[in-house]
């Protein structure tokens, strides 16, 4: 029981830190923090697909694009963000189902290739169909959501709004992972053959994990639109899908808070390491390779290793252990 108290107080501390972080800081700092939250949402979704269901998706950025552009077009047409966002979310979920259904019927890492192709296709459509998407010029001037007394125009207000959305998204994810679905996901990644023999429809839950993960990507995209108030296809290219994938891996795939840690490393670190400039990606990718060789479970995997050294595993395993990428 002591373990739970420690975890909850740690989480509480983090929440307090998240609330206090932007106070007194400049707009740019707040903007970066908001960006971190948004990418944490995208990474959370991918974590479900990769860390729990064991599938590589290289399309998370394209789902962000679908969410972003849908929200942009609707809010430009006068819809409130709270109504536009669910449309984008739903669209991403459906597209995720449509994409995953055939791709997951075959063995191997075919989903990786299909999502790779999909991401590039989405990029092409965004770039070429200017009548809808503004092509290379993108879309500008999307409004920040207004909640009557609370306007998100100010950067810090928008941060708190994003924080609230992130908290809800995290709670929903927690609910999913804690439920019997979560147990089935865990079984899927640890021993899919045994799971199948116990009645777990592995194809169906893999597909669901992928679709839900994609919906989270859409949510993240829906937040990008009002944050930057300007979107263009280049922001959602394959390289961004790779970045999100790296976030999940570095944080620790299959760990609940992995995405937050990973997103922090990818987004916040370069801000603090300005001096490395162009070398940043070189250092980063080299670190990822080294990390995968020695600590394939990511940063939180290191934490778990240390914890196991200090305390024997007498507690309940569910949700405390991460995945081994197989």
């Amino acid at each position, binding site marked *: 029981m002591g373990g739970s108290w420690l975890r909850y107080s740690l989480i509480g501390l983090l929440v307090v830190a998240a609330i206090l972080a932007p106070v007194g800081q400049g707009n740019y700092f707040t903007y970066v923090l908001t960006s971190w939250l948004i990418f944490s949402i995208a990474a959370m979704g991918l974590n479900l697909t990769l860390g729990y269901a064991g599938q*590589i998706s290289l399309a998370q950025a394209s789902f962000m694009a679908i969410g972003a552009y849908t929200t942009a077009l609707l809010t430009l047409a006068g819809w409130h963000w709270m109504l536009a966002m669910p449309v984008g979310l739903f669209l991403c979920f459906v597209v995720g189902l449509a994409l995953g259904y055939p791709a997951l019927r075959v063995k191997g890492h075919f989903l990786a290739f299909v999502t790779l*192709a999909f991401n590039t*296709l989405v990029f092409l459509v965004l770039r070429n169909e200017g009548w809808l998407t503004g092509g290379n010029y993108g879309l500008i001037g999307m409004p920040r959501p207004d909640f009557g007394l609370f306007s998100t125009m100010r950067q810090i207000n928008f941060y708190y709004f994003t924080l609230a959305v992130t908290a809800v998204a995290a709670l929903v994810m927690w609910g999913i992972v804690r439920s019997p679905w979560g147990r089935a996901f865990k079984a899927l990644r640890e021993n899919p053959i045994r799971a199948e023999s116990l009645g777990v429809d592995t194809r169906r839950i893999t597909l669901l994990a992928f679709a839900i993960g994609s919906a989270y990507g859409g949510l993240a995209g829906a937040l990008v639109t009002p944050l930057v108030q300007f979107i263009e296809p280049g922001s959602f290219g394959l390289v961004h899908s790779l970045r999100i*994938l790296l976030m999940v*891996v570095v944080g620790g795939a299959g760990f609940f808070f992995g995405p937050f840690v990973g997103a922090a490393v990818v987004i916040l670190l370069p801000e603090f390491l300005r001096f490395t400039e162009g070398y940043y990606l070189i250092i*980063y990718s080299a670190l990822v*390779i080294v990390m995968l060789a020695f600590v*394939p479970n990511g940063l939180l995997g290191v934490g778990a290793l240390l914890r196991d050294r200090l305390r024997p595993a007498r507690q309940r395993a569910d949700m405390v252990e991460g995945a081994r*990428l197989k």
Partner: protein
Amino acid sequence: MSQFMQVFLSGLATGSIYALVAIGFTLVWQAAQTVNFAQGEFVMVPAFFVLVGLHVLHLPLWMALAMAMVLSILVLGLLFKKLVVEPILPSGGISLIIATMALGILLKESVKEFYGAEAQPFPAIVPHDPINLFGAVVSMQDLMNLFLSLGIVVLLTLFLNRTRTGRCMQATAQNPAVAEILGVDVKRMILYAFLINAALAALASFLITPVYLAKFSNGETLGLIAFIAAIVGGFNQIRGALAGGLLIGVLDNLTATYVTAEYRAALPLVLLIAIILLRPQGLLGTSEGRTV
């Protein structure tokens, strides 16, 4: 009609180079369960080795090429296997895929930082005067590329089928456990697969870079095409990768000329998705078993 021949032959030429890349990709996948997402960058880097040889070390072209080939085999073959694949493969296929993705980024950014972000001209290995063939004007370069690539494929196939080492490599790909019992040095066969892949990538690099100019971002398109060619053709057959490469090359050219320029890149992607849905073993692949 003559324009069609032109476009077709040109497509075949480019496609044959794609085939080299796809074959190497398939080799490594079959022999070592390694899906190398850095394959595109493996084709981008050797060109820069040559440029360094030419402009920094002031070597004559043939020497720069030789040096680049040796370096490629060492770095993209031996070091790749020892430093990336061996430590990470035990953690599982997904870790390795992600590691190769990171490697691709590493190579790309390194070239960008240490050599330069602009496209660099690359010396043509073969002359590119136009010649007349079947009434169409074809570039000599295209023909030579086609000839060279197909020649390499033939040599490779002969090696794999007719030599003892080649057959050992095939055995390793099909069933490493049994191969080991039969006395095959499985580790060495796997190493050979990596070395051959590096050599193929380097050759492809030498042939294709004169056309595209050397740029750090070349890897993206080339890598994607390699995967698509390998999967479309048939993931478990060399001739599948060959067929896939040629097909993509021709279709790509035909699409760009006759259908659409904007969505040119879409065709291979749609083809990939279609094949995975409808015939995951690829056009020439077999649904069971693997061969090198």
